[in-house]
């Protein structure tokens, strides 16, 4: 049973949230402030849910404290509107960000996704900016930029796909895996939607630089992102 640490100053919200999560098979620990949360240490927790607005040290500070020693998944909750806080949170190492009032089922879905990914033990979490052949994938702002300094708009599934492919590179990702991660379902052998998505992304990229061909098909193994990746500051 995964153990969740909820750091939230509104006692009622944390009580309701832990009740809700316990009905879904999680074991919850609640702290009312960042100081209390830090006192409980990191050991034994599989995921943190942290409110940004806390008495004393704020949630971002707690997030930094966790990241100093651990890569445990962390979701930030915030009553603030706008991207500035989200980007800041993601840059400080949060894995996800939800605005209040959030839909509890969406929180659950994102928690499950993070826990599954953490279970994969597949290298470091992608963050910041990744460069390849003059292109820049800005993970904080969720944007792709082409070499001629243009923003290339992607749909959300296309963005998820490029993140998955780059995250797995130099290994290929199988069609089934992409189906599970992006469409949250098991693909049947006749289901073409992953292939359609891949060709859509290829077209987007080659629409900007006609010779760009980063996504290779590897027979029986799936798709591979073939480019020299560079972490940008």
């Amino acid at each position, binding site marked *: 049973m995964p153990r969740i640490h909820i750091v939230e100053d509104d006692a009622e919200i944390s009580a309701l949230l832990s009740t809700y999560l316990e009905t879904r098979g999680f074991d919850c620990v609640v702290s009312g402030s960042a100081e209390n949360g830090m006192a409980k240490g990191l050991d034994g927790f599989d995921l943190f849910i942290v409110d940004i607005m806390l008495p004393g040290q704020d949630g971002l500070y707690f997030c930094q404290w966790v990241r100093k020693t651990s890569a445990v998944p962390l979701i930030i909750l915030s009553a603030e509107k706008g991207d500035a806080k989200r980007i800041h949170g993601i840059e400080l190492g949060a894995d996800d960000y939800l605005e209040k009032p*959030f839909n509890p089922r969406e929180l659950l879905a994102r928690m499950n996704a993070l826990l599954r990914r953490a279970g994969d033990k597949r290298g470091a979490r992608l963050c910041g900016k990744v460069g390849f052949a003059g292109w820049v994938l800005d993970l904080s702002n969720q944007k792709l930029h082409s070499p001629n300094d243009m923003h290339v708009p992607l749909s959300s599934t296309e963005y998820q796909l490029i993140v998955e492919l780059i995250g797995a590179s130099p290994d290929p990702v199988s069609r089934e895996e992409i189906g599970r991660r992006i469409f949250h379902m098991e693909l049947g052998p006749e289901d073409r939607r992953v292939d359609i998505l891949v060709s859509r992304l290829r077209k987007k990229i080659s629409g900007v630089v006609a010779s760009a061909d980063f996504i290779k098909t590897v027979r029986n193994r799936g798709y591979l992102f073939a480019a020299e990746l560079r972490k940008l500051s």
Partner: protein
Amino acid sequence: MNAALSRLVTLLPQTLAQRLPLLVIVAYLAGAVISGWSVYVLYKRSSALNEAETSGESLGEIIRSASGQPGQVPGTGSNGPYVFKRLAGLPEALSEHTIPLILELGDERFRTAISFAQPPRLPQALRSEAVSASPSARLSELSKAIARQDQDAQLVIFLRENDVLFVRAPRLWQDRLSQTTVALSGAIVFALGLSACLLLAVNLAAPFQHLANRRGSSRRPGRFASTEALLVGDKIDHLAEQFHIEQDKKSRGLAAISHDLRTPVTRLRLRTELLKDAEVRTRFEADLDEVTGIIDGALDLLSIGAQAEERFRFSLAGLLESLVSDYQDVGKKVELVAPGEIELRSASSIFTASADVMVRSDNQCLMTGQPDKLRRAFSNLIDNALKYGGRAVVEVVPFTNDALKVNVRDFGPGIGPDQLDRVLLPFVRGHGSPAGRGVGLGLSIASEILALHGGHLEFTNMETGLLVTAHIARESGPID
């Protein structure tokens, strides 16, 4: 030079109430001086002509007495306006501008010359026209004709026995301005004065013009501005500041309310999730979705201009394509009509293989702006179309070199003609169906975002459904 100018400016009265009378007085004085001078000069000339015309008798007497007493040389004297001198023979040659003529006085004929310093203006006026005029009439005519030349002149009459009679009329035959010169110079000075007045008037109006034209930034009117203009400027600044403070207060109040609602709504969301009865839970969720929509919408509308977002160059067609893909991925009926692509294939020759030459028309619809905000604007327009029309058709059109157009069309009932200009007001629902859920914040937010991109929304009722046209500037200035 500059220092002198600014000293001069400080000498000017500062208030409009003083400047206007000053302008009127200066204009009046200038007009009076010009017209007074012209009238005076013209009057002097015409009275000289009059006198010349009536003094033929005096001139006749001079000639008669001189011709009647041969041998008495030299002799001087005056009669009326005339001064004469009688010499024996010409002391010196006459000036080169001399008009000779034969003066017929009754039975006598005199060889006569009229000598001028300059070439005379009207030489033909000196000859007689009336054949049988009396001597004094002829002399009056001659005297007037000489006066009309408007310059210093002397009448030389050759008498018998080599005597010569010189006649001058210092008051009548003198250098003076001609009629035309007076009229012309009067008109020119008048025009100059008028334009100076116009300049001053424009200068008086300029600060107000400046106040009316300025936008946003509170630049001071120039240093020539009158006190009143400065006061009006200050007042406008003050009102604008007051307006911003009020606006800010209201926005912050609304933001605080929306913000404070987030915690209870979060609790409600969690409580709803714990409800056992599935049907009740669904209904609660629907209500909560609506409440969340209102809170988010209100906060969005209030803060959209202030939300920082980097500006990028991107293809609007690409942005709409990705947005439409998002809708299609979740099974919504949204179609995209992309601008056409022209493809030309170069002919293959024996030297080169046929190469694909793609001539791209402007189908990318490149622009510079804030992609996330625009994405939200268009998704609001599409949501609205889906809500009322069930399906949406999005079309992007390269409109001009500076502007793009995006059409979002639904196939619903459209909006009443009386509602067309009200739909952009927050909390107004255009389709007038009481069953319609949600509030009209989506369109207000979209309109706000387009305004940030130098554009606007336009609504047209089609045969079936509503056509919303979004105009966007390709390059809108950075938002401050």
